[in-house]
């Protein structure tokens, strides 16, 4: 990847309710709800903008520094 963002979104899959609210707001289309179970962020697409974290009704997304 060329310019990767410093930060990225991380989902607590245990507490995710799979509602898809995050997917709806992601400007990069980086989120999918995996088999109706929990959301998964495509790390290569995520720019760490945090819109998903703001929207998530369960507040289970954190924007963290990439490892």
């Amino acid at each position, binding site marked *: 990847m060329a310019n990767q963002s410093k930060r990225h979104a991380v989902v607590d*899959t245990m507490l995710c309710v799979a509602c898809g609210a995050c997917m709806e707001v992601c400007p990069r289309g980086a989120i999918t709800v995996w088999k109706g179970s929990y959301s998964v962020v495509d790390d290569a697409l995520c720019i760490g903008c945090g819109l998903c974290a703001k929207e998530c*009704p369960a507040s289970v997304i954190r924007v963290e520094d990439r490892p």
Partner: protein
Amino acid sequence: MKKSHWYNYLWIWSVVYFAMGFFHILFAWLGLISFFLPLIFAVGVGSKGFCNRYCDRGQLLRALGGQKGFSRRKDVPDWMKSKAFRYGFLAFFMAMFANMLCMTYQVYTGAAELRETVTLFWSIPVPWSFAYAGGAEPWAAQFAFGFYSMMLTSAILGILTMLAYKPRSWCVYCPMGTMTQMICRMKAGAKKESNP
């Protein structure tokens, strides 16, 4: 702001549904659509496609809380997203649903009389005879009153938590959402691991 999709307007169905129940309670039967569709998505394809896109309730809360900005946008309390509460609320809802079917059956057998009321929060009866002039099988009307009560109660709960917390906070403890996620997780055999 991302561009809108057609399904973002599905909230209109919520409004139409509740409005129709004011004029004729038998329209409440149409609520079964929002009952079976999510289950078909979950059982059929193991997807939360209904919640993710096509749920009128979800879209309504998103429109009111998100776009119109009525939501305080605060985090829900931890207990609300706990498994115990979510499964507990699902169990409670199922029990109340069974109770409603039971009442419908009693009216069917003639053991009970049709009650033309909408019951809010499973306890507050609201006279609703203005929306029913008779004509249908009493049990069919009883089911309609019961189903409408359930839909209206859950909509009010959803709007209250939309105002207090995030727009779609109802989706955290929505029984349909919890049940379909449970089905999907079972189908996917999802391991209880966290994000890699």
